């Protein structure tokens, strides 16, 4: 299989050298790739994996595409990330931690990072900076959202890279997919849900399992935050419940949350 160039409609496929890297994260997004049992072999025939520490010992720094999972919390990580950026033609922020900081950035709620460290390690010195998303350090070419990412989406993106098709993610919110899955709206069941303002692409993963969306994929384009807050409050959800969800994965931090609506 190696060597020979495959084509689609007579157009040669691009078989990139791919590396996977992980920073501060749970490595669940990488695992999603391995969880793709049915298509695993086809998937790996489209790319040449040269670096994937979680599953392989061989490593090479000759790669074109870097999938970067996790958020950034130490100087060393910054250095490593910058090195990856210099090598990679295309750097993909892989999963919510990489895109927005993920659940890790909840640490940033505490202004005093020393307090955070002391609480766990006492006086033992441990390095840990403010949690940052990948694009706060280096330029990112593409974001694959989700906590965890959806394997179908990863597969599609890799296929599109190979074919030279455009890489797109839905701009509309989760509600679209939720309705297509014929779910009962969580609000009818008295549960909070961020579906109306969260970027789709997960196939309404949580609402379809009758659990409200927590916004792991970050905001959809054109978010009506004021109305969303009004609706949440109208349904009797406390500020705390709303904030718990909005701040959970860090995706909504750049979206302006009107001060007076949350009070």
């Amino acid at each position, binding site marked *: 299989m190696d060597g020979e160039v495959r084509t*689609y*409609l*007579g157009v040669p496929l691009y078989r990139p050298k791919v590396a996977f890297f992980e920073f501060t994260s749970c490595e669940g997004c990488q695992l999603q790739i391995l969880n793709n049992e049915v298509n695993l072999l086809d998937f790996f025939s489209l790319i040449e994996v040269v670096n994937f520490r979680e599953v392989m010992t061989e490593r090479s720094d000759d790669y074109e595409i870097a999938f970067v999972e996790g958020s950034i919390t130490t100087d060393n990580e910054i250095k490593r990330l910058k090195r990856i950026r210099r090598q990679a033609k295309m750097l993909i922020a892989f999963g919510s931690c990489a895109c927005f900081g993920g659940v890790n950035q909840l640490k940033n709620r505490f202004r005093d990072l020393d307090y955070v460290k002391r609480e766990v390690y006492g006086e033992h010195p441990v390095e840990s900076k403010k949690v940052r998303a990948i694009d706060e350090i280096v330029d990112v070419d593409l974001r694959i959202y989700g906590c965890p990412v959806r394997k179908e989406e990863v597969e599609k993106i890799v296929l599109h890279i190979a074919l030279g098709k*455009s890489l797109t993610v839905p701009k509309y919110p989760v509600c679209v997919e939720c309705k297509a899955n014929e779910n009962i709206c969580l609000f009818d069941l008295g549960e909070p849900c961020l579906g109306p303002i969260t970027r789709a692409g997960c196939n309404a993963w949580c609402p379809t399992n009758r659990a409200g969306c927590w916004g792991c994929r970050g905001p959809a384009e054109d978010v009506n935050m004021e109305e969303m807050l009004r609706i949440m409050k109208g349904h009797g959800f406390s500020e705390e419940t709303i904030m718990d969800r909005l701040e959970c994965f860090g995706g909504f931090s750049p979206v302006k949350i009107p001060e007076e609506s949350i009070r």
Partner: protein
Amino acid sequence: MISQLKLIDITKSSMAEKRVGDLSRFEYSYKAEIMSVYRLTEKETLYRIQIIDPEERRRFSFTPGQFVMLELPGIDEAPFSISSSPSIRGEIELCIRRVGNLTNFLARVKRGTIVGIRGPFGKGFPMEEMHGQNILLVAGGLGLAPLRSPIFYVIENRSRFEEVNIVYGTKSPDQLLFTYQYEMWQKDDINLNIIVEKPDKKWKGPVGLITDSLREILSGRDKEFYQNTYAIVCGPPVMFKFVCNMLNEFHIPMQKMFVSLERRMHCGMGKCCRCNVGSTYTCLKGPVFDYWTVMNLKEAI
């Protein structure tokens, strides 16, 4: 006992009305082969495409201004104006600019590739109505692609038209399309006015906006000329806004000014609603509209 309902053959059912004829009529697509690929500029390529089935080829005809949906299976499908002569059957030329998913892939395919074609769709320019009149063809940039078909028509029926003017403008000389045909057009007594915004060293022609050329042609004519002139305008939205305003200024009748609108389309058959302007389907009622209709479309153009 109650039996199982039978699958009703949709071709024979009693509800099948006149338009709902046999099954093959629902299949609006043809397989076609890319016969040649010709690079026009850095961004635009001309494809000659021939329908494979001889019978289908014989049946395929179109009027200038109509478009087809071109499909590369698995890649995408999108609308393109037919850019060739309406007198050739079953074979069309498309001039396609590289802008996105489908068009980028198209730029990489080779001669011999099989594509899907649906159409022709939409209303074209009413060429016969224009017989005996002056014709003004105004194109900006890629707008020349859909205009090439009416140009062919005019050339092939040159004696049926009075004065014919082409006004064509691009940003820079290297963006000019179909440069190899200019001479031929002029030979057929067509006034060709080309203007560019940013000249390069070799450029000797006029420099400026398309409206500059247009004003030059229209100024100082008699009333009869204006009343008996049909204008066909194609180009980016800003350009045709200015052009149409100017034509209006010179009192070219609104029903004699035609524009071709571009919208997003996913079906070309008045179903997906993506191309609606106000509440009008561009694909069915257009893409060619007279200016009066455009004014009535409500949603700002």
